[in-house]
């Protein structure tokens, strides 16, 4: 197979914490691949490090460990100039449509700024391009000279998407782009993401809480728990039968159709989400895992399971996951 568009290997991001406490291990050893044009969902409870992972991949945070390769180039070793070239190919859409646009810029200057930064086009062409971008995200030309405060949340999110598209990226990292929107608007924006992907062949790294949205948008889904991926699978398979006990718990939580309601917490789990400062020994999930006792010799507490292709039971599905319950089988892929 050709080189994946994005290759993340053992990526970690630790934040030093004040007062001599242990570091916050927001991301701790994440590996995955993303092919060109593929859409990968990233789900997990609040605070498990999804945003930090996204920011580290985008180079907005320096990784504490591990590497990210984009189209075969190691991002950690890039010169400033090549970084700039990569930035054209990898863009981001943020969660909060009220914070992601500079309140002092008009839509026109928001949409032309990326082109100015990269010295693309002449001023006139840039303006026409801003109009084309607006059109692509379903906004009319009459919005070009208006300012962010004059738009609704959904419209702002469309502007944010248009800005991300201005440089014609191959990969769009979306950090919960729907969480701050009303449900009816969410559906429209999801459709926009689907449409844009078909039109421009985008690859997505799509972070979301709403599992129904992830199912609609993503080819594959990675499930994160406390800074690590515990399971990664084709979304069809995952939705048909979650493998990892944590995924099961997460999927049994019924999504609440109200964006202001508290974030869905994985149902059927004991205890709180663990603090990334005090990562439990062994499998980080074991204190909350309903099936940890089934593994002999308290192995879950002593030893962290590797993310490997495994089989849950003899005739169960083969999954790439990190759980001692399922013995590592032969790699199928």
């Amino acid at each position, binding site marked *: 197979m050709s080189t994946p568009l994005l290759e993340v290997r053992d990526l970690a991001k630790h934040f030093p914490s004040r007062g001599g406490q242990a570091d916050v291990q927001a991301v701790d050893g994440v590996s995955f691949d993303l092919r060109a044009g593929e859409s990968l969902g990233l789900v997990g409870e609040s605070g498990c490090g999804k945003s930090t992972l996204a920011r580290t991949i985008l180079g907005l945070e320096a990784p504490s460990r591990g590497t990210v390769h984009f189209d075969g180039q190691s991002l950690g070793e890039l010169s400033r100039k090549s970084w*700039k070239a990569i930035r054209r190919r990898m863009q981001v859409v943020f969660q909060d449509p*009220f914070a992601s646009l500079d309140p*002092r810029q008009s839509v026109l200057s928001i949409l032309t700024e990326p082109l100015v930064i990269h010295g*693309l086009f002449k001023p006139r062409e840039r303006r026409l391009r801003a109009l084309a971008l607006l059109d692509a995200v379903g906004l009319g*030309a009459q919005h070009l*000279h208006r300012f962010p405060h004059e738009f609704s949340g959904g419209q702002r999110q469309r502007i944010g998407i248009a800005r991300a598209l201005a440089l014609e990226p191959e990969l769009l990292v979306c950090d919960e782009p729907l969480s701050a929107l009303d449900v009816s608007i969410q559906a429209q924006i999801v459709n926009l993401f689907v449409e844009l992907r078909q039109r421009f062949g985008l690859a997505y790294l799509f972070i979301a809480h709403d599992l129904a949205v992830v199912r609609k948008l993503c080819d594959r889904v990675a499930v994160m728990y406390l800074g690590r991926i515990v399971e990664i699978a084709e979304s069809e398979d995952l939705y048909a039968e979650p493998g990892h006990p944590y995924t099961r718990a997460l999927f049994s939580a019924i999504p609440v159709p109200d964006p202001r309601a508290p974030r869905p917490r994985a149902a059927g789990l004991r205890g709180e989400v663990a603090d990334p400062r005090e990562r439990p020994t062994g499998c980080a999930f074991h204190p909350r895992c309903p099936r940890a006792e089934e593994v002999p010799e308290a192995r879950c507490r002593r030893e962290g399971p590797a993310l490997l292709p495994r089989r849950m039971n003899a005739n169960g599905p083969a999954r790439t996951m990190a759980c001692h319950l399922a013995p590592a089988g032969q790699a199928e892929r």
Partner: protein
Amino acid sequence: MRPSWDFGLGPGRLEALWNESAEVRGESPGQLAWKHVKASRAMRACLLLLALVGLTSLFAPLLPLPSPMALALETEPRPPRLFGSGQAWSAADYWELNPLDEKLLALRAKLFGEWQTPAWMGTDAKGRDMLARIVWGSRTSILVALAATLCSLLVGVSYGATAGYFGGRVDNWMMRVVDVLYSIPFIFLVIFLISVLNEYRSELSRLGVGPMTVFYVVIGLVYWLTMARVVRGQVLALRESEFIQAARAQGASFARILGVHLIPNTLSVVIVYLTLTVPSVMLFEAFLSFLGLGVAPPKVSWGLLAAESIEAINPIHTFWWLVVWPAAAMGSTLLALNVLGDGLRDALDPRHGKSNR
């Protein structure tokens, strides 16, 4: 590599869209704030008053006022009077004028001839016209305020923005410096600096540094500290905001992020803070002049007028006009600035604009 996506819009359609887009203009946050200011009667009144004060002080030599410096042989202050006129004036009554002021004075001679206003606000113990002294005195006060403001703008904003943007250790060191300077009682600092520098007055003037320059620089040195803190706090908060992250993700340079996104977004706070700095600098100038450390005669300033007026209060005879007029001029200006600052804070508040939140 040139961008090549096909948006499915021909050039003709794009032109049409462009024409369509020109029909609607949004209102920027700045325009909104301005509208808010204009809508308020109090704010308009303040702006008008400040404009008046600014213009009269700038064009003081043009006005047909008696000289604020020339002494007359009087025994005691004379009360205000509406009619009558004093002696004729001549250019010799004015000294230490810069070339521009001399031109204005010449123009005045052409416009008004010999005529000058009677002592509408009375005269002081040395026979000098109070109105003229207030108008000319505003020049010094405004100049001090502007110098301190400029200093706090240039030094404070760039220092604070840099500390805030880099954060971490850089921020820590830069702000500790500010803290140390802050912890020195600043009145003592200024008094100390001015007294020391006054010792070297002749050496400094040989270098072309007049006492007034020293005064401006010392006040400016003190006033940038708060500005640096204010801006740094703002930038620190803005730095993590998503639009800055988005700009970084697009590959924007440090200069661009600072100049296009960070500083303009701290501007509202800076403006508000400035309108509140100006009055405090004016008061400080008054205080120093009162102590005899600021402006020295024959120059006038509002502070000096206040100091002189204190002498006019005595149990035997109160020369009220020596107290009331300078106090009214200074008080109304300071009040206008404070009201303006308060109103601007509301007008520039981003939450002020209608949002769906």
